[in-house]
């Protein structure tokens, strides 16, 4: 699994800063394959798409 903000492996490293920053940012990397996702932010939400693993929204 990869961090959806910085794209580095989650394993044992600390991603506390990323998790805090994600409150005000959409994801940028696919957690499954680390591909950069196509992200569209709109006033009331966002959509992030990985070509291999599909779309997540909020």
């Amino acid at each position, binding site marked *: 699994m990869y961090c959806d*903000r*910085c*794209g580095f492996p989650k394993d044992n490293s600390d991603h506390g800063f990323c998790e805090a920053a994600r*409150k*005000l*940012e*959409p994801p*940028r*990397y696919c957690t499954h394959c680390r591909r*950069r*996702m*196509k*992200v*569209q*932010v*709109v*006033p*009331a*939400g*966002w959509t992030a798409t990985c070509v291999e693993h599909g779309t997540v929204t909020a």
Partner: protein
Amino acid sequence: MREIFERVLATGVGLDEAGILEVLRSPDEELPELLQAAHDVRMKWCGPEVEVEGIVSLKTGGCPEDCHFCSQSGLFASPVRSVWLDIPSLVEAAKQTAATGATEFCIVAAVRGPDRRLMDQMREGVKAIREAVDIQVAASLGMLTQEQVDELVEMGVHRYNHNLETCRSFFPNVVTTHSWEERWSTLKMVRDSGMEVCCGGILGLGESIEQRAEFAAQLAELDPHEVPMNFLNPRPGTPLGDQPVVEGPDALRAIAAFRLAMPRTILRYAGGREITLGDLGTRDGLLGGINAVIVGNYLTTLGRPATEDLALLADLKMPVKALSATL
């Protein structure tokens, strides 16, 4: 200092660069008095209403310019990928924005300036929004030619955003692919066209206090209808990705200084306020000169939920400006 405040309040004439600098250098103990003075000026010369706006990115990322703060430049190792918003999604975003009570919806594209494809998308998008939603449409598409200015007017775009970003003397430290003067030239064409001019910038790019005063004075000389105030939110992969954020008291001093420099302008909270000021600081700024907000998300980052900002405005007894008041 009190004499300076009273003169601005009485005349509606903004501070000059020396006066702005004096305000920016004022100590923390004087901050409450400074914010009160800026609030008094705002209430007298603009009134209690707050203009609410939503923004959306029509074309994200892949920009050929090197604005050092921007995650949408194609020249940096930013994780932001290039993507276009389709017209139905654009109209839906306008509807969501209008549902908050907003009167402004700004369509933004990460480009040096619009090409034919983008102008065609704008034409189609503005038409579709005007048919479906009762909201004013603004645009931000970079540097324009006179023909493009004329075309946007003909489409019905009523306000054009083009930020100078920072003062003239510091601009080459932030952008090297075009000049401050090129931006100024677009702003003059927009002004002459009859479209409203929206022009602000970002604080915390590494500019000095003196350069912050220079910037406010240059904006005052331009006399825009609206000044969006952003505070740097350092973006990963950009040259300013490790820049420290502006301290809350400095941000509030800047808000007050910009209000005292431009007593009659629409002074809008834009990006970065969540990080620089938080909830309490956001409230202080609205009581210190701010009279407009962007609600909801920004172009590539997220904002506070619109409901929280609207609840804050209600709590402060600041009515949201109605659409009829802008027509």
